[in-house]
């Protein structure tokens, strides 16, 4: 009976693994098929071709989209990590009047749906003449983000206070204590923040839809949506182009996962961040 149970568990695990991984294989395989064979559901293409990749490269300014996305993503991730860590340290280390209510306010902002601030924030960037540029996609991250502030503060609170008091007695100023002692001790949480925000910024579609107008400024997801509109169901039914572009958009995230797998899993398990 126990043996049978074990066999069933393994059978179920393998079946689900196939179900979860197969769409990737299907998509990757389709990207190497000519147009007429895209929906033939063969795992290995009958006619193997690189034409789709060459065609996507010709149809879309893909290198530019990649560059735009990478720029936005790196700036967004670095900015939010530095400022959120500063704010988190401010809330974790110092005692000051109003600390509790103020941190409550940080948490309360997480409850506010993005839809409420979306329009006025657009109007701010519009009045600054920034609509159509990449700036609105990342610059807000210069002011920290409630979720990461929460995450990093939790981590800082778990550190022993002695090294900081010792450094203080040795004459180190607050900035030095933060950058030289607190941040290095908090490396796992910093890595989680960087990875989470890298993924969030890379995959975002809504903000690029709102702020980007010209296809030379597109990020990869925004460009992928444009390719779908042009070559997919609205137009020429060139699904092979759409699929190939989807593969190109997804692969960097798969690589990111395998680089930071341990941190991703741990970060999600401990924070409940989704």
């Amino acid at each position: 009976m126990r043996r049978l149970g074990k066999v069933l568990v393994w059978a179920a695990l393998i079946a689900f693994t196939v179900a979860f991984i197969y769409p990737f294989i299907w998509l990757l395989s389709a990207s190497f098929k000519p147009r007429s064979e895209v929906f033939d559901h063969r795992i290995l293409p009958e006619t193997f071709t690189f034409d789709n990749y060459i065609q996507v490269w010709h149809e879309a300014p893909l290198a530019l989209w990649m560059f735009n996305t990478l720029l936005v993503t790196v700036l967004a991730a670095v900015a939010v990590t530095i400022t959120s860590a500063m704010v988190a340290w401010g809330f974790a280390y110092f005692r000051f009047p109003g600390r509790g209510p103020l941190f409550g306010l940080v948490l309360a902002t997480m409850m506010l749906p993005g839809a409420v601030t979306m329009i006025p924030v657009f109007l701010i960037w519009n009045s600054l003449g920034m609509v159509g540029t990449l700036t609105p996609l990342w610059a807000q991250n210069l002011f920290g983000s409630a979720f990461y502030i929460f995450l990093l503060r939790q981590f800082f609170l778990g550190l022993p206070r002695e090294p900081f008091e010792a450094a203080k007695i040795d004459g180190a100023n607050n900035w030095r204590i933060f950058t030289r002692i607190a941040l290095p001790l908090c490396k796992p949480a910093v890595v989680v923040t960087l990875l989470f925000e890298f993924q969030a910024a890379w995959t975002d579609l809504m903000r690029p839809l709102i702020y980007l107008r010209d296809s030379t400024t597109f990020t990869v997801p925004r460009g992928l949506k444009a390719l779908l509109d042009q070559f997919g169901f609205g137009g020429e039914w060139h699904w092979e182009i759409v699929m190939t572009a989807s593969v190109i958009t997804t692969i960097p995230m798969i690589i990111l996962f395998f680089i930071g797998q341990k941190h991703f899993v741990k970060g999600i398990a401990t924070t409940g961040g989704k």
Partner: protein
Amino acid sequence: MRFIETRAALLFISPWLIGFLIFTAWPVINSAYLSLTDYDVINDPNFVGFDNYVTLFEDPKVGLALRNTFIYTVMSVPAQLIVSLGLALLLNSATKASGFFRTAFFLPKMTPPVAIGILLLMLFNGQSGLVNGFLGVFGIDGPAWTTDPDWIKPGLVLMNLWTVGSSVVIMLAALRGVPQELYDSALVDGAGWWKRTLRITVPMISPTLFFLFIVDSINALQSFTEAYTAFFGSGNTTYSNDAALFYAIYLFQQAFEFLHMGYASALAWLLFIVIMAITAVQMLVTRRFVHYEGGNP
């Protein structure tokens, strides 16, 4: 000394304070004001009192969008919870290679939502999609998932189940925290697998189930990218997409396609109230079923 410490603290939290004033506090006030105006970005806002809120209740698309969003949420959230609990239980009972399977379940979560919208169109295509091909093996004639209004939302629910990986990881962490002694003593009492799962596992991880229930619901009520990618935008001229018109999509269209900034602000406040109300009801109703080790807080 006290003053110096306060000053240092304020310097450290100043990025958030400034950002809060510019990107949260002011937008909230401005959004409340804009919701009482007609505003198209080009001309000055024109104060119209509560007209936008009256229009909300007369606009058939608001009713449609709310209904679509509720139906989707009611199908999607329980499905996500059940599937992720099932997968976490499976992972928890496999002693070997559970890391490999966890990676397999998590990987789809890395896919950009725009690509998930595209995968939906292709995998669930009524004639040539992989899903109907699979159903065909069992002699089932699958529906037109992406064009039949009755099947668009179930298709979206199934597609989104592909990304339960993060919930699985959270639940697995909770399962690993259940003390083994509880199972050992239940085994001595002769309790079977079902009984152990229902009487020990589910109560012990109920705070996590509760957390995911609330968070998944809030997310589902704001669903946008997958459905927008697959069914909206300049490309779709071929078929009706009313069945996929989620509330967030309608809000986006009003704001950024029709430039009805005032009306869209009123839509945003209605969404805020709806989410708050639903979350409050969920908390009141489910709280009594949540078991906290060491007493309820």
